[in-house]
C-alpha cells in the first residue's frame, strides 16, 4: 500500500521476463471502457424519486418487522411445552427478525445500485513487491541488526538461544499428559490404555442381561432366529461417573440363536456357544459403531455406519465393507438356574484396531 506514486507500467523493469507467454507482435487491441449508459434514475427525475421512496419505505418496513419480532416474543409463549407453541414462537420471531434484516439489506443495495452514481472508476495497479529503495532499506535493517547483535557471528549465543527456546516448549507439552488419568492405588490400570482396551467387564459367571432393562436372560427364552441386545447384568450397578458408558461401550453384545447345524465347527468354537446360541461383540471392528442390524434369513450382521457385514454362521467374519477383523466372540454357557452366563472375558480386544492390539 506504500507505493502509490508509481504505476505498474514504470516498474516493468522489475517484472520477471514474460517467460513462456507466446509473444504476439500484434496483440488484440483493447477498445477501452465502453461509453457510459445512463440508468433510468439518471435520466428521469420521477424514476429517481421513486427509487428514493422505495429505499426509505423498505427501511420503515424493516422497522415494523423488528417491532413485530419483539411483539411475537411476547405473543407466542412456549411455557406450555406444546410442540405447536414452540413452533409458533420459532416461526413468528424468526419471520420478524428475518424480514427486518432482509429489508435493510435490500434497501441498502437498491440505494447503491439505483441512487448512488454508477460510473466506473479506473485505478492503476502496482507491482506487489516493494520499491527497490524500500527493499534495500529493509535489507539494511537486518544487516545492521545482525551486526549490532552479532546474531550471525556469535554462533554460541545463537545455538544456545535456539536450544533453550525449543527446550522451553517441552515442559508445556509434558503438562498435557494430565489430559488422561495416571494409575493410582484404587485404579491401577488408569494409566494404561492398552490394558484397559484389552479387557471388558465380562467375567466368568457374569449373567447376560437385556439392554437396557438389565434383566437376565434365560437360554430357554431365546427364540430361534431372534437377536437380543445384551449387557452384563452388573452394569446397572455402575453410575455414570463410575464408568457406566465406558464399560458399556466395550461390553455390549449381540445374542443370536441359530440351529446348531448352522454353526459349522470349522468356523465356530462350539464350546463357546450354547444350543445354537452365540454371543458376539456388538462393537464394530472397523471404527467402533454398534453393529445393530441382524438379518435373520442370512445370519448377517450389518453395521449401519459404514456397512460392514459379518456372517454369524461363519464366526462373524467380514464378508463385506471396510471392517478388518471378525467380531470377537463371547464364550457363553448356562448357570444352574438356566440363565445365560459368560464363560470368561473376550479372548481378544473388542472394537477398532489399535497399534498395540497384537
Amino acid at each position, binding site marked *: 500500500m506504500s507505493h502509490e506514486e508509481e504505476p505498474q507500467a514504470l516498474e516493468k523493469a522489475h517484472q520477471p521476463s514474460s517467460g*513462456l507467454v507466446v509473444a504476439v507482435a500484434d496483440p488484440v487491441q483493447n477498445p477501452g471502457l465502453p461509453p457510459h449508459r445512463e440508468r433510468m434514475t439518471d435520466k428521469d427525475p420521477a424514476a429517481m424519486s421513486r427509487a428514493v421512496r422505495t429505499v426509505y419505505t423498505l427501511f420503515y418496513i424493516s422497522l415494523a418487522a423488528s417491532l413485530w419480532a419483539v411483539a411475537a416474543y411476547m405473543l407466542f409463549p412456549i411455557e406450555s411445552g406444546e410442540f405447536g407453541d414452540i413452533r409458533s414462537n420459532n416461526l413468528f420471531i424468526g419471520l420478524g427478525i*428475518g424480514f427486518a434484516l432482509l429489508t435493510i439489506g435490500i434497501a441498502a443495495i437498491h440505494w447503491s445500485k439505483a441512487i448512488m452514481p454508477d460510473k466506473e472508476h479506473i485505478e492503476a495497479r502496482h507491482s506487489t513487491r516493494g520499491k527497490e529503495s524500500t527493499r534495500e532499506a529493509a535489507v539494511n535493517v537486518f544487516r545492521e541488526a545482525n551486526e549490532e547483535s552479532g546474531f550471525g557471528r556469535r554462533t554460541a549465543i545463537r545455538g544456545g538461544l535456539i536450544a533453550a527456546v525449543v527446550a522451553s516448549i517441552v515442559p508445556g507439552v509434558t503438562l498435557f499428559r494430565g489430559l488422561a488419568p495416571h494409575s493410582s492405588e484404587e485404579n491401577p490400570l488408569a494409566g494404561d490404555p492398552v490394558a484397559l482396551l484389552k479387557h471388558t467387564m465380562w467375567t466368568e459367571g457374569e449373567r447376560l442381561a437385556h439392554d437396557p432393562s438389565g434383566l437376565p436372560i434365560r437360554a430357554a427364552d431365546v427364540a430361534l432366529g431372534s437377536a437380543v441386545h445384551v449387557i452384563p447384568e452388573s452394569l446397572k450397578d455402575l453410575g455414570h*461417573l463410575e464408568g457406566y458408558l465406558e464399560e458399556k461401550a466395550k461390553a455390549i453384545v449381540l445374542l443370536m440363536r441359530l440351529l446348531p447345524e448352522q454353526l459349522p465347527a470349522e468356523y465356530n468354537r462350539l464350546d463357546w456357544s450354547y444350543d445354537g446360541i452365540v454371543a458376539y461383540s456388538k462393537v464394530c471392528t472397523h*471404527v467402533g459403531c454398534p453393529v*445393530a442390524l441382524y438379518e435373520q434369513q442370512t445370519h448377517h450382521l450389518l453395521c449401519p455406519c459404514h456397512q460392514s457385514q459379518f456372517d454369524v454362521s461363519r464366526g462373524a467374519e467380514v464378508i463385506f465393507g471396510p471392517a478388518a477383523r471378525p467380531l470377537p466372540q463371547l464364550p457363553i454357557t448356562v448357570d444352574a438356574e438356566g440363565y445365560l452366563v459368560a464363560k470368561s472375558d473376550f479372548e481378544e480386544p473388542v472394537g477398532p484396531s*489399535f497399534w498395540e492390539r497384537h
Partner: protein
Amino acid sequence: MSTSTESAPATALATPADKPLGGRFIGATANYIDERTSISGLVKEIGRKIFPDHWSFMLGEIALWSFVVVFLSGSFLTFFFEASMAPTHYDGAYVPLRGIEMSAALESTLHISFDLRGGLLVRQIHHWAALLFIAAIGVHMLRVFFTGAFRKPRELNWVIGFVLFILAMALGFTGYSLPDDLLSGNGLRIIDGMIKGLPLIGTWTSYLLFGGEFPGNAIVGRLYTLHILLLPLILIALIAAHLMLMIINKHTQFAGPGRTNDNVVGYPMVPIYMSKMGGFLFITFGVLVLIASMFTINPIWNYGPYDPSPVSAGTQPDWYIGFADGALRLAPSNLDVVLFDHTWSFGILLPVAVLGLFIVLVAIYPFIEAWVTGDKREHHIAQRPRHAPTRTAIGVAGVIFYAVLWAAASSDIIATHFHLTMEGVIHTLQALLFVGPIVGYFVTKRIAIALQKKDREIALHGYESGRIVRLPGGEYIEVHQPVDAYERVKLIDFEIHEPLVVRPNDNGRIPWHENFRASLSRWFFEDRLSPVTQAEVNAAIAHQHHELEHIDHEEQEEIRGAHERAGAVDAPLHPIDDGHNPETANRPSNIIVVDEESPKKDNRPSD
C-alpha cells in the same frame, strides 16, 4: 486514478473549522480521533479503493457474512450452554424427555430449544449459518481455482483460504459434537476409532483426547474450548490476514473492455461497496433467519442422550464431513496387517492417506502449477475456465473425486432409496472413484478447447443473427453479424503460453527433474490455440463488412425485383420505422399488392 473528487471523510478533517462536513459535532469527533490515531491516512488509503464487480466475487462475501452470523448466534448460545458431561435429569417443558438421565450438555441444549423463548431459533440460525459458511467457502474456492485467481501474487492467500476451509470444518465438527446426543456421540465414536487406527500414536492420542476411555466425561468440555476459543481465534486472525492480502493485492477482474492486467475497473469502497457489502450482510443474515424460522435442523430431541449401544439405520454425518466418511466406507475389507508385532490398520490408514494426499494437493496446487508453467509474473486477470483447459480439467477431476467420496457417505441411503444392493452401490462408487476423474478430465478439456474455438469463431466471423436470406441463385444463408468491439475483446483477449523448454544447466547437463518438469509443461499446454492478432481481427472485420454489404445488395435487388413484379416500384426497401418494432420484416412475401388484378399477385418468391 479515479476521476472522482476527493473522498468525503478525508475532506471532513481538512475543511476549515467554520463549517465541518457532517456538522460541528462530527467534525470535532473526527478531529479528536485523528489527532490521536492518525486515522485520516487509513481513510484516504482505502476509502476510495476501487473493487471490480462480478457476481462470482460475492461468494467469498457470503462466507464472510455467514461467519459473522455464526459468531453472533454462537455468542448468544454460550450464555446458556453448559459444556459438561455431568449426569443430570431433564425436567423442562418438553414432555417426552422429562426425567431421562442425560449429560448437562444435552440438558442445556434441550433447555435452549424448549425452555428459552427464541432459543430454538438462535440454535437453528447457528447451525444453518455454519452450514452456509462451509458451503460458501467451498464454492468460493472453486471460483478462485477455476479462474486462476490463485496465481502470483495470490498463492499465499490461497493457502490461507485453504486453512480457513479446514478450520471451518473443524469448527463444524467440534460444534456438532457438543450437544452430546446420540448422533454426535456416534460421530465421536467414529473419530475415536479412526484415531486408534493411527500407527504408534493412535491409542494414546485417543486416550488423552477423551481423558480416559471412550466416551469419558471430558470430551465435551474440551471440544467446547476448541470450538469457542482456540479455533475461532485462529480463524478470525486468518480472516483478517486474508482480507488484508486481498486489499494489498487488489481484487482480480475478468478481461474486458478497458480492463487490463495493470488496472482495476470498478466502484469505490465508500460509498458503493460499503452500501452493497453492508446490505449483503443483512441479506445473508435475513435469509439465514428465515431458513432457521421455517426449517428444522439437528432435532436432538428425537435422538436422545448418547448411549454406545443403539444406533439407527441411515445415520449420516453433517454434509461437509461426508467426503471423509465416504472414504472410510469405500475401503476394502480385511486390511489389518500385523507387522513388527504391531497392528497396522490399513482399513483406516488407506482412506486417511488418500484424503490427506487430496487435501495437500489442493493446498499446494498454486505452487505446482507455477512450477509446471514456469510462470513468474503477476496475474490480475481472472481467467475464464475455458482459457486454461488443463487446469479446468484437473479441477473437474478433483470435484468428481470429492463428489464420489461424498456420495459414498450416503451409500446406504442410495441403496435403499433406489432399490439397489448395498454391495452394488459400493463397488460402483469404488470404480467411479478412479474412472470418474479420468473421464471428467478428458471430457472437460475437450469442452474447454471447443468453447475457445467457438469464441474465436464468433469473434472473427460474427454471431448467428437468426436472419435467413435467400440469394438470387436460390441459396439460403444465415447472416452472421459482427460482434460489438467491447464484446469481442472479452472473447479473445487472453494470454497463450508455450510449454517450458529444458535448458542444460551450468554443467551442460539436463537433470531428470527438469526433463520431468518439461514433459509436465508440454502436457499442461497441450492442444493450445495460437493467439489471435489485431491484423487477423481487422481482416475478419473487413471481410464481414464486405460480406454484409454484398448480402444487403443482393437482398435489395431481390426485394426491388419483387416490388416490380408486384407493380409497386416505389415501395420502400426497408421497413418504415414508425416507432414500433414490427414482428415481420419488409420481405417480398408481405408486400401489400396494390393492384388486385395483377396477374403476378401470387408469384411470391418465398413459395
